[in-house]
């Protein structure tokens, strides 16, 4: 951002539109722009070297007028990072190294393509030039992620150029709060944090609740192992989340917002902090937003590393400065939440969906997806899959399409065994259900959950008992310990599963696991405990023979568990 921009707070929708036009006008859409992914994934793979390389070369060769550089959030194809896209043609270079930079620049200004850096389609063996032709992107519907490569998340002007904060302007000046809530209800948007509660209905309850003040909260405590959806949204397009919160706040009647974000998300935190600062400077936060008379402020609160703080009541306790432990939700948080005031909490991805619903309308939005689950869902694909990364798909797409068409299947020609969706409290879905349409209700039917969108793929070399043991021991470590079934029950479940994987399993273990599971579901205080048995119950349901092989034959069919040491005794 080198130059210090002189910023004037915008005081009307007209001023916003004029600013947008002036930004667009000042930019030559035909000028070549080199886009480098600066998301956490690509940075881990060495993107910083690429970014520094481009900056140095462009300066050295005085090419600033011909080529521009934009460092953006993640476009999703983490497997092939560091990623570079040459715009406006959208030529995709993958696995780019610092030493490739001079060649990319030289060839780009000549109008050539660097063949060796193109992606090779493993199916055909052919090189693919353009991003949109890569199979990984083809079946996606990137409503939320699509703009990432057009936005430098540290520069609000990129977001504004794309019509950013236009939905806020429309909401404030052309819609009543009731109309906004009606629109969100009609869109069919359901909470992306895991529960899938209808967002519009939640807003309505919070709007109707009595209280001195109402709080608007964004849950960015994304703690599921293998989940990085919210991190990427905040890293790549933080203003879309802020705009969603602003629209929600206006509809509900709240004036104070909080983003509760995990401290491990350094880059997301940095971009979010910058975005809030810039939004304030331009007049999208603070008093009298866009001259509408509506006031709203957002504070950031950093989580201390407790998984359970992703649970709404624990999160609110933590925001209050108390120990992050859940409480019973018989009185909903929309009635009595943060500091006993009506509080509306939504997840990052939920908030990010709001601006486009307002912009393009509920009718458009509700045409995407299935009867009960509308819109798109972002999944973080991880585990034994060729294309690790972030994918955005319409609700209702089959598991098979995600894993094979987008994910590129299982590495080394191995056989697919199961996909675990929804984090530790989700279930393992077997090969026989690969044609399952993925939406909130279908996932629940097979014993799993949507959760926050992690999808961990396992191949034939995975032991399902060991997987259940892993997730249960994760949750045992993250249980807050307040309620008896979760604290003591997970400890016992973990002991039994460890015993089975060590060859000490005995008759009755499976029955005991099932009884424990049913008590965890029925009796736990919060969703951490009540969903904790999903990995156990689904592996028992779909892979019972593996448990039996461990217990009866002291054999691990996948060859993962070391049971022999025990047998020799």
């Amino acid at each position, binding site marked *: 951002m080198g130059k210090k921009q002189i910023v004037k707070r915008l005081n009307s929708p007209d001023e916003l539109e004029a600013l947008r036009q002036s930004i667009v006008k000042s930019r030559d859409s035909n000028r070549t722009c080199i886009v480098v992914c600066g998301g956490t994934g690509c940075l881990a793979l060495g993107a910083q070297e690429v970014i520094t390389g481009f900056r140095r070369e462009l300066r050295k060769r005085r090419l600033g007028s011909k080529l521009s550089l934009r460092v953006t959030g993640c476009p999703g194809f983490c497997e092939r990072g560091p990623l570079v896209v040459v715009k406006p043609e959208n030529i995709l270079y993958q696995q780019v190294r610092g030493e490739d930079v001079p060649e990319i620049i030289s060839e780009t200004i000549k109008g050539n393509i660097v063949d060796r850096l193109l992606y090779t389609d493993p199916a055909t063996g052919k090189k693919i030039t353009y991003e949109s032709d890569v199979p990984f992107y083809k079946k996606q519907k990137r409503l939320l992620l699509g703009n990432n490569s057009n936005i430098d998340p540290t520069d609000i002007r990129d977001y504004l150029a794309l019509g950013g904060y236009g939905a806020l302007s429309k909401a404030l000046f052309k819609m009543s709060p009731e109309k906004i809530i009606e629109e969100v209800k009609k869109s069919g948007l359901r909470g992306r944090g895991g529960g899938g509660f209808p967002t519009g209905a939640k807003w309505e309850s919070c709007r109707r609740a009595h209280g001195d003040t109402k709080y608007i909260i964004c849950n960015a405590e994304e703690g599921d192992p293998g989940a990085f959806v919210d991190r990427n949204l905040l890293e790549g397009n933080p203003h879309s989340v802020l705009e969603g919160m602003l629209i929600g706040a206006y509809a509900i009647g709240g004036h104070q917002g909080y983003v509760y974000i995990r401290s491990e998300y350094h880059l997301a935190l940095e971009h979010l902090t910058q975005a809030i600062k810039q939004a304030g400077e331009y007049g999208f936060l603070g008093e009298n937003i866009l001259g509408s008379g509506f006031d709203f402020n957002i504070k950031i609160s950093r989580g201390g590393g407790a998984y359970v703080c992703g649970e709404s009541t624990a999160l609110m306790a933590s925001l209050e400065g108390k120990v992050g432990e859940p409480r*019973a939700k*018989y009185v909903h948080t929309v009635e009595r939440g943060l500091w006993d005031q009506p509080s509306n909490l939504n997840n990052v991805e939920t908030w990010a969906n709001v601006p486009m619903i307002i912009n393009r309308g509920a009718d458009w939005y509700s045409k995407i997806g299935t009867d009960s689950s509308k819109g798109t869902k972002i999944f973080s694909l991880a585990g034994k899959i060729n294309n690790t990364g972030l994918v955005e798909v319409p609700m209702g797409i089959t598991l098979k399409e995600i894993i094979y068409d987008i994910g590129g299947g299982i590495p080394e020609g191995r056989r697919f065994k199961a996909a675990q969706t929804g984090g530790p409290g989700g279930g393992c879905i077997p090969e026989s259900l690969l044609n399952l349409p993925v939406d909130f209700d279908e996932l629940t039917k097979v014993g799993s959950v949507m959760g926050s969108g992690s999808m961990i793929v396992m191949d034939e070399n995975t032991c399902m008992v060991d997987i259940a043991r892993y997730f249960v021991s994760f949750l045992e470590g993250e249980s807050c*310990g307040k*309620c008896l*079934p979760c604290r003591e029950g997970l400890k016992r479940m973990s002991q039994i599963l460890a015993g089975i994987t060590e060859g000490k399993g005995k008759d009755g273990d499976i029955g005991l696991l099932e009884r424990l599971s049913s*008590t965890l579901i029925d009796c736990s205080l919060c969703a951490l405990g009540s969903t904790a048995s999903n990995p156990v119950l689904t592996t028992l349901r779909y892979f019972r023979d593996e448990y039996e092989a461990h217990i009866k034959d002291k054999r691990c069919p996948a060859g993962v568990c070391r049971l022999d040491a025990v047998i020799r005794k």
Partner: protein
Amino acid sequence: MVTLTIDGRQLQAEAGTTILEAARDNNIYIPTLCFNEAVKPYGACRLCLVEITRGKRERLVASCLYEVEEGLVVKTNSERISSNRRMLMELLLARCPNNREIQDLARQLGVEKTDFRLEDENCILCALCVRACTEVVGVSAISLVGRGTNRQMATPFYEPSDVCIGCGSCAYVCPTGAIGFEDVGDTRHIYWPKNSMEFKLKKCKTCGQYWAPEKQLEYIIKKANLSPDLFDKCPDCRD
């Protein structure tokens, strides 16, 4: 007033009361361990779970926290409830196999043995001591430290607490006798599961009996703005 049905009996309760309170007012037994009228309900032991029906939906709720509603139908002892209570007791019995209170309650709920590996604790982490210390006494000398299975009841850093007044409320409310309490000569001993403290007792000017911790009396004098010599004599020797 709200009309509800508990175990087939139609009864009335004031709005704002919990199912547990309404049941107890009508002599309907619901087991509890983490409940005490002196402090706010907490919902941690889950033994007080009851089954409620609203429309077609049945679900289990903690009766110590769920407030009565008009037309609510409550079952306190269905098969689903008792099988869950038995599992909860098995878990408790495995944690505290040598604790008399837990053994008695387990037997009462039909649990004689547990399938889990035995530990040897007395504290069930119900937090009654912590809540009494905070909500009733108002000093917050003790708390639950650690998370999940590492959770323990203790003073900060397991060190002697400089705010503890030695009143013994924690021992008094403990449902399992996990906190010990003893006056020997001029000293009061409080034994928590993981550490202990001693307190000097005040001597009665008249009879010479040691009758209360000095720190507790100082706390009462300060809190109620009383004259310091009020507690020179023990209650028996006062006029």
